[in-house]
Each structure stands twice: as structure tokens, then as C-alpha cells.
């Protein structure tokens, strides 16, 4: 058993309200430093079956290996493991800007047996800010893509401004408003649980995400698979 396909999805997330299903439902503003969204596919209790009991998520400013895993900082807000194959994520807030971070995790079964270490995800601080310390305007590609349970976007605002993010199907019909509010300067993130505004799961297919950050516009494509 092991935590699989650990991937660093977003360079910056500004506070996330997590739903009970482990999927982000909404975003809130925060000035608590640089947040990171860490996404992974939940492992099973026995191979790809069942579900794990616990996660041990670590982060460090230094490369993590299996030998020094326990020396890295332990993130205490790990979510409850979901059924094997589910997309899960956590938000690690308040990290230092312009700083590289390494992330890794292990999972445990109900008997307390811990898995080996996952792959190591690396976040480079340069994504968040220019060398002069000022935040660079950005809106990332979705992660993962194709997406089965959720897709996440990172963004960064050089100054406080309105963030408007909407998802459309290929017919141009708006299916979901992901954000429409004033947000503070700095990094942030949008996590889309791949449902429409009524909370219904979307059908498989191609969707377009239009983002407007202040005066700048971005268009991203998300492939939803079921």
C-alpha cells in the first residue's frame, strides 16, 4: 500500500474550505503566507482495495528521502483517507515565499502499518513571486488534467483585485461559477470539484475555464473523465 501519484497541483492557494467529501467547495481569502495545494490519489488498504486509515504528510525546505522522512515537518491537517482511487488534497498554508519546498507522504492501514514513502513533490518558490519579491500575475493550467474528481488552478495577484472564474461546456453554456469576488494581493487557488452550480457531477468531456484577474484574462481547458 502506498500513497500514489502525489502531485503538487498549485503554486499558491489562499485558504480553502474543505467539504466532507474531501473536495474543495469554496475559497476564502487569507493573508497567512503562501499556501500550497497537495493532491494525490488515495491508496487502498490492501493494494487498490478498501481505504487507508491515516496519512502522514511531510514537508521540508530540503529534499525528503525515505531515510529522513521523519525529520521533515509533519502537516497535522491531513484529511481522512477516502476510498482507493479518490482524488484527495490538502492545503498547507503559510509557507515562506520565494522558497523551495518538498512534500512527501505515507499512509497507514487500520493495523498501524505504514506504507513506503510516496514520490516527492517539489514546489519552487519562483512560481509565486519574482526575484524582487513582488507577486507575478499568473493563472496556472489545471491539475490534474484530465481530471476525474477535481481540478485545481493556482493564481497570483500582484495587487488586490477582482477574481472571476467560470467554467463552460463546449457549447458555450456556463456550468459553474468558481469565483466571483474581490481577493487580496498574493497567491491563491481555485479548486473545482467538477460539478455544476447545482452540485451535479458533470458529464465526461471537454470544458473551458475562463478566468479574469483584474484586467487580465486567461482561458484553460479541462478534460473531465468518468
Amino acid at each position, binding site marked *: 500500500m502506498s500513497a500514489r501519484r502525489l502531485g503538487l497541483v498549485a503554486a499558491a492557494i489562499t*485558504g480553502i474550505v474543505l467539504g466532507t467529501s474531501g473536495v474543495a467547495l469554496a475559497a476564502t481569502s*487569507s*493573508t*497567512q*503566507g*503562501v*499556501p500550497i495545494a497537495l493532491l494525490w490519489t488515495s491508496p487502498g488498504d490492501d493494494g487498490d482495495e478498501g481505504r487507508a486509515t491515516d496519512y502522514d504528510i511531510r*514537508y*521540508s*525546505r*530540503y*529534499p*525528503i*528521502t525515505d*531515510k*529522513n522522512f521523519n*525529520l*521533515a*515537518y509533519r*502537516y*497535522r*491537517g491531513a484529511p481522512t483517507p477516502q476510498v482507493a482511487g479518490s482524488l484527495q488534497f490538502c*492545503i*498547507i*498554508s*503559510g*509557507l*515562506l515565499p520565494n*522558497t*523551495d519546498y518538498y512534500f512527501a507522504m505515507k499512509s497507514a492501514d487500520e493495523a498501524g502499518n505504514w506504507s513506503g514513502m510516496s514520490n516527492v513533490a517539489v514546489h519552487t518558490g519562483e512560481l509565486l513571486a519574482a526575484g524582487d519579491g513582488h507577486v507575478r500575475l499568473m493563472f496556472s493550467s489545471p491539475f490534474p488534467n484530465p481530471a476525474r474528481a477535481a481540478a485545481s488552478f493556482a493564481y497570483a495577484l500582484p495587487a488586490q483585485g477582482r477574481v472571476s472564474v467560470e467554467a463552460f461546456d463546449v457549447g458555450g453554456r456556463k456550468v459553474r461559477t468558481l469565483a466571483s469576488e474581490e481577493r487580496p494581493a498574493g497567491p491563491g487557488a481555485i479548486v473545482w470539484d467538477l460539478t455544476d452550480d447545482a452540485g451535479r457531477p458533470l458529464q465526461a468531456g471537454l470544458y473551458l475555464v475562463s478566468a479574469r484577474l483584474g484586467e487580465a484574462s486567461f482561458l484553460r481547458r479541462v478534460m473531465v473523465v468518468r
Partner: protein
Amino acid sequence: MRRIAALTIASLLACMVDSALAQRTAEQPPPARPLPVQAPLVGPTLPDSASLARDSSATDSAAAARDSSAAAAIPVPPDYLAEVRSNFTPENRKYASTHVALDFIEPLFGLLVGVLLLFSGLSARMRDIAHAFGPTRYVRVLVYLALYMAVVFVLTLPLSWYRGFALEHQYGLSNEGLGGWFTDELKSQALNLAFVGVLPILSLGYAAIAKSPRRWWLWLAAATVPVIVIGTLLQPILFDPAFNKFTPLHDQQLRAKIVRLAQRAGIPGRNVYEVNRSAQTKKFNAYVNGFGASQRIVLWDTTLKGMREDEILVVMGHEMGHYVLHHIWKSMALSAALAFALSFFIYLSVRAAVARFGGRWGFREPHDVASLPLFAVVIGIASLVTQPLVAGVSRAVEHEADMFALEITHDNDAAARVFIKFGAQNKSDPEPSELVKAMLYDHPPLIERVRFALECHPWTEGKPGRFYRGGR
């Protein structure tokens, strides 16, 4: 009039309380001097986080690289707990053990000196000499005090020299020559004499005892408050500059970052000074002292030279925590509370001792200035008794400042490195016994501070800070 007089005797109590709360690093708590006139005039300075000692490799890397990116060169997460333990070499252990022994011996020796002055009749003879200088209480008290301080200075000089000069040189921690050290000692004596004797604090105290034989303890306690306040106010602007040069921070880039940190903490960043402590020592430290307009944060130049920028910001965060959390005021309040709690004990003890031994000592009343060694002994005993309480409160306060530093900087790695460097450079015992910790440690032991630095990161879960709730 009685109140005015009592203001002065309170200086005795103030000195006692000050000596308990004044700047003390975990490694080198100042001697619990039992003789009030010897007590440091420093106010309730809240020392840094510091107690430290850095190993040479840490120092070298610090000097070489001040940008945080240098940390990325380290291939794996450092084992900070193992590092703080490994830095405590046999040599450092020997130094720390000697200090602990001195911390216990010096107060007891001070008590012995006081008792010796009383039973030898020397105190009474000094009183007689002082009386020959005139009929006024002020002159008599001033002359007696000068004689008393001179005698105590000579008797305690071997211990003071060993602790303050010989031991520091033996372990390569001092930059100060014997002449400079001795001059500083004399300056300290002169300032004590000026503050307690030339200013009529002590003579007013004795006047209060004479005029209010049954209630002087109450006046003494009440008068302690303004004495502490004045002492704390004057320390950074009058007393400290007598020993070192204080200047605004030179490094403008660092200063700008400290000012930004101070702005986030909501305090005036202009009150950040560096002091040339390298003239005396190789140790690291920083502290906040004074209050109101005189309140300031002071960084030793040794700290500036031996630490990286991110580490200095953690140190500053710690000191700003003292500032923001009003630890100076709280320390003064604790001092006042202790003064009231102990003054009655002092009153009863002095009264009983004079009744029992006054004849042998050559005086019959507590308001006889020859009783000064008796006050010193009683206050010294009270200080020893209350030391665990005072040290415990101080450790709690320091822990709060550590937490504030972490919450405002979010830099666990830098905080851990700060404590490791403090421990290595100051040759501190990171894991003292519970007894030593309870009696002498006014900062949490370094192993606790490093462990806390590694475990305290509630912000990663989006939780608000306990002491700092602003943004990073």
C-alpha cells in the same frame, strides 16, 4: 513624609526583585547577589532568546551566506535535535557545569559575607566611621554605603573575577582585557552608589524605618513600584550606555526587513539598536528593555555577525514578542507583587534578628544603617526562595516570545538554527536537570526550544496564531 522616606528603602526590595528579573540568560544567570547594592541596576530586561553558542561550522556558514537560499544547499532536512545535543561537547559541558556551580555558590557566599560583616562587628565600625562625617542621615548613609560597597566588592572580587573574567577567557568567550573588565566592575559599583546612595533612596528608606517602626514594610513595598519604574525607564538611556556604545542598526538592508517585521508586529521599528558587545564577549544575545519612550530592542553586534539574516529576523521576532505582549510591564507588575509579598517577611525577619542578635552586632534598631548587611542577607534569602517562581514565570514569558517569533516569521528552520547557535556559542546545557532548570533557567532549555521550533506550525493548517494574528 513617611511615604517619601519609604520610597527609598524600597530600593532595597527593588534591587532584590530586579536582580531576580533582570537580564539573565539560561547559560549565565547573573549571580543572585545577596547584597542589594551589588545587585545590577538593570531593569527587568527580557533577554533574548539567547543563550547560545555556535559551533565554528555554523558560524562560518553564517558569515558566508546571509541569504536564505544558502539553506537549499543542504541536501537533507537537518536533524536539529541531534545537532543541538552534539554541539554540547565535553568542553561546553564543563563550562556549563562550572557556571551552574557558581550560580549556587555565589548567592550563598553573598549571604556569608553579610553574616561576616554583622558578627565581626565590621558593620558597626563602618557605621561609627560614617557617623563621624556629620549628623545628617543622608551623609551617614552615603558614607556607610560607600564603605560597605567597597568591603563587599573586595571580599567578592575573587569570585567575580573568576566568573566574569577568568572563566570566560579560559573557554575563549571573552574579548575583554583585565583592565577593561575591572573598569566595568568599578563603573557598576559607581552607578549603584549613585543610584541608591547619592540619590537619597537608601537614606529615605532608613528614615521611613525610623519614623514608622511598625509599618515601614508597607511603605517599602509601595515605594518599590516607582523605584522599579524609574530604574527600568533609565536603564537603556542612562546605565547601559556607560558600558557600551549603542547605535541605530547599520545594515540598511537588514534594517528595512526588521522595520517591515516591526510594522507587521505593530511596533515602532525605529527603536532597534545594535550594541558593541564584541568589546567584551563572543557570546550572542539580544534583548528588549526600557519602557515607554525608552523602550528599545537591542541586538548584540556578535549576534549580527554570527547569524544569517533569516535567523536575525527570528531573534527580532522573539524580542518584538516581548514588546507586543507587554512583557516588560508584566515583569514590573510581578516585581511589585513580589515586593508586597516579601516585604512583610523581611520586616518580621529583620525585627526578630535585631532583637536576637542586635547586641552582638552593635545596633539595636533596624533604622541603624549598620543593619544594611542584615537587610542584604534577608533579601538574599527571600530571593533564593522565590527564584524558582521568578524563573518559572520568566520561562513562560520567553516561551510566549518564541511562539510569537514563529507565528510572525513562519520560519521553523531559522528558529531551530537560532537556538542551536545560541546554545553552541554560549556553551549552554541544552538538557539541564529539573533542579537546575527550576532554579536557574529563565529561558526554556534549548532542547525544548528547538523541539518547539520544529513542532509549532499551526499556520500550515490555516489556524490563527495564538499571539500574532496578522499576515505573513
